[in-house]
């Protein structure tokens, strides 16, 4: 079939779209998408298919809970024996971290390349599960009523994709620090030595924040405004504060005119919203649809949120 002749209305539309093309937004989008792809490629497809159903199935939480209970049982069961110096039991406990390391190794991304940013480390952080910018899960397309075209069929896997492991990582308790019995392979020191030794350090600082804080600004992403809004939406107050302390504009908006405060209000994150307000976030700045954070707050039935915004005593 011969394509119809060009119509002036086509060029009218193209000309109009040029006015709405922001290079900065496009660059930010590019960085975000390529980073997501890089992270996604960090997980081998075979591993993804193997692991995804296990942890993202409907009863994934049950599996995770069972693992935790079993781990706890092993700790209680074998810890006393291990403290008595039973080598075989200590070895039994030492096997498990190796298995977990294999899993985290599968999640560990490969070496970076200039155009695709280096994926984030796979070591889980307390907030790793709710990081928004990296949308790695697939929206289900299996319900599509449209038949697959014979001429250009997309891959079967694309029609009914299964979400990868990275979409819903297991609870931190599983992949994070193993139980004490698994860590303590060596027998405890004598009591005298323990008394003479300096006290152990206090609880370790939050790993995610520490890791990010140690990075220079450039490594946090080319568009820190996106990071800020994603953190605000997910309620990662510490990360929001860190970004704000780096002088990221508190009212920076995305392509839809949405600010971090609007994101936190929509997601009903009172603590994050309160923090943003303290840093001077505007309640009255409007998004492209003409709604302000104040307007959005009226749609959320949460007195705590309204108090955080100062809209209610």
């Amino acid at each position, binding site marked *: *079939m011969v*394509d*119809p002749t060009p*119509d*002036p*209305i*086509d*060029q*009218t*539309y*193209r*000309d*109009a*779209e040029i*006015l*709405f*093309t922001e290079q900065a937004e*496009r660059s930010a*989008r*590019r960085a*975000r*998408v*390529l980073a*997501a*792809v*890089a992270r*996604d*490629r960090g997980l081998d*497809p075979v591993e993804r298919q193997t692991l995804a159903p296990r942890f993202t199935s409907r009863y994934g939480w049950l599996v995770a809970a069972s693992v935790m209970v079993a781990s706890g049982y092993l700790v209680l069961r074998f810890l006393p024996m291990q403290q008595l110096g039973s080598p075989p039991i200590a070895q039994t406990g030492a096997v498990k971290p190796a298995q977990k390391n294999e899993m985290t190794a599968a999640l560990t991304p490969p070496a970076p*390349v*200039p*155009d*695709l940013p280096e994926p984030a480390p796979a070591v889980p952080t307390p907030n790793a599960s709710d990081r928004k910018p990296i*949308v*790695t899960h*697939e*929206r*289900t*397309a299996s*319900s*599509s009523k*449209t*038949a697959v*075209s014979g*001429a*250009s*069929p*997309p*891959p*079967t*896997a*694309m029609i009914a*994709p299964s979400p990868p492991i990275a979409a819903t990582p297991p609870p931190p308790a599983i992949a994070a620090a193993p139980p004490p019995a698994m860590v303590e392979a060596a027998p405890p020191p004598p009591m005298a030595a323990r008394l003479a030794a300096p006290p152990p350090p206090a609880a370790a600082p939050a790993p995610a924040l520490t890791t990010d804080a140690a990075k220079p600004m450039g490594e946090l992403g080319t568009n820190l405004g996106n990071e800020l809004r994603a953190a605000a939406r997910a309620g990662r107050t510490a990360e929001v504060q860190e970004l704000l302390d780096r002088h990221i504009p508190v009212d920076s908006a*995305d*392509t*839809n005119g*949405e600010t971090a405060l609007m994101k936190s209000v929509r997601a009903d994150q009172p603590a994050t919203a309160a923090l943003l307000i303290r840093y001077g976030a505007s309640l009255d700045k409007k998004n492209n649809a003409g709604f302000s954070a104040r307007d959005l707050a009226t749609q959320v039935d949460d007195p705590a949120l309204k108090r955080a915004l100062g809209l209610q005593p």
Partner: protein
Amino acid sequence: MGQDQAVDEDSELLRAFVAGDRQAFARLYDKHDQACFQFIRRLLGSAGADAEDLHQESWLAVSRYAASFDPRKASFAAWLYTIARRKVWDHFRKQKIMHLVSGQEDVMAEVPDPGPTPFQQTESRETALAIVKAVEALPLVQRETFLLFVECGLSLEKIAEITEVSAETSKSRLRYARTSLRRLLSEREAIDG
């Protein structure tokens, strides 16, 4: 000829990416990013707030299933827009946003070329916004055909493959879309005086 070269180049880039060349993916992305994003954003219309997410998901799908892409069956562009289109339609289904069909198709007639475009006459952001809104107001099937043809530069045959209709239907939808746009814009000009 040029289009064939572009098709080959896309396939080569995707193959290089599958082989481990990540920069090839970035180059492929840069070639199609803008048109793909505009396609998703305008197809979403009032639900455009999710365009960034769907755009990212589309490229993630490209990355994940790159190895299964067969250039003998379809061009990369057709494959990409098939993915993007399905993301949008799935999104509509989930959101229960169903304004897919309009009865306007039966009553509209083709209108002759009106000559100079409105944009040439008044290059203002308001006019541009009105044009974009007019596109977003088109019935979904017309909108996607129009966007695939104008924004993505696909032929009617490829559009027909992607949208799973006949080429004649694609042609009709494009004609109706153009007619609607002209009508909407002329109405606006009449209102503005």
